[in-house]
């Protein structure tokens, strides 16, 4: 509707709720539209989870664990390395004090987990991306957007129909040919 949107080559419909969106997605799949081209957007997590491309969710915990491991090694190396490089005697303590180094190791481990998790999230969620996504204002009103990216020109009508069917999209928007990925 606004100028920015005109640059996208997309056909989408606005559905009132998840159920409508789900049925639209069903229709699109029935049309044999490439699953990777189906786009769903909502302003809240949808109850029905498999509206779009299924993704393996197992990677993130492992990445987090790896981050923790890196953090642990970094923390311990920092602590013990500092102590060994500048071996100063204090309070009759050993030069490398394992007990106290555990604390820094612990903190660095958890910091590693946190940072790895967030990085993993950003990477896998493809954030940040600086070009505008589809942002129909009705999404923020609670509507669900279902669309097809770069729809084959010949099937535009089918897709529009599919969007409307089954109590689906109340409104259809077609945008320009440019890829927005």
């Amino acid at each position, binding site marked *: 509707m606004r100028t920015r949107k005109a640059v996208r080559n997309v056909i989408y419909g606005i559905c009132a709720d998840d159920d409508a969106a789900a049925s639209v997605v069903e229709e699109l799949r029935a049309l044999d539209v490439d699953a990777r081209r189906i786009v769903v957007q909502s302003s809240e997590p949808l109850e029905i989870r498999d509206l779009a491309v299924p993704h393996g969710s197992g990677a993130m915990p492992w990445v987090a664990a790896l981050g923790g491991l890196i953090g642990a090694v970094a923390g311990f190396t920092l602590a013990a390395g500092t102590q060994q490089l500048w071996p*100063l005697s*204090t*309070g009759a303590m050993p030069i490398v004090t394992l007990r106290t180094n555990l604390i820094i190791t612990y903190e660095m481990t958890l910091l590693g987990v946190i940072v790895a998790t967030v990085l993993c999230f950003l990477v896998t969620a493809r954030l940040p991306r600086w070009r505008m996504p589809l942002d129909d204002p009705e999404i923020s009103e609670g509507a669900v957007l279902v669309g097809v990216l770069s729809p084959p020109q010949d099937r535009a009508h089918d897709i529009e129909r599919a969007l409307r069917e089954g109590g689906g999209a109340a409104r259809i928007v077609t945008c320009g040919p440019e890829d927005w990925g």
Partner: protein
Amino acid sequence: MPHRWGMVVDLDRCTGCEACVVACRAENNVPTVGEAEAARGRAIHWIRVERYVDGEFPDVRVKFLPVFCQHCDAAPCEPVCPTYASYHTADGLNAQVYNRCIGTRYCANACPYTVRFFNFFNPVWEKPLHLQLNPDVSVREVGVMEKCTFCVQRIKAAEIAAKAEDRPLRDGEVVPACAQACPSRALVFGDLNDPDSEASRLAGSHRATHLLGELGTQPKVFYLQREGGHDRQDREGDQ
């Protein structure tokens, strides 16, 4: 073998005259803070003579106790310092590196002897009082912790002198300002690693104790307890 500097304080000799207190101030450029600051608990005395009073009139007994940095082997002040301003030298001193101190005052809290002093403001020497400043000792600026150093500048000077003559340090060659001033010779400084030093000999006395020894700080200052005197029984016998 490195030195292990220590001090022996004979409480039976100490008279509470406080010559040590002023001598230390003169030697180590310890600033005066003035009445208002002193009233707020900011007076700096690297060595002080604590006095504890026992009994009520007329059976009053007083104990004088010169207290200064105990140069603990297991010093609680050292590990808590985040910047290594407080650390242990090879010859057993609790060093305080003024340049490294950022003023967390953690060491002062950790010190059970409360012998660490803080510069709450920049010290002031009204001219020409500054001419008296000892050039061998740095002047500390605001925000820096300071304390007794066992007159490390005198130790270093004696070591340099001995090295120049290519000989080991002799016992009694290093005398901190407090011990040098002490009229009754209550303070004896020396190398505890040297079994023949006077300090070692006195530290082996049956009267030798540590201050707050139960805390396990392993101080290098020994206190020789007072002998004799009257016990309570004796005092009651007089009445």
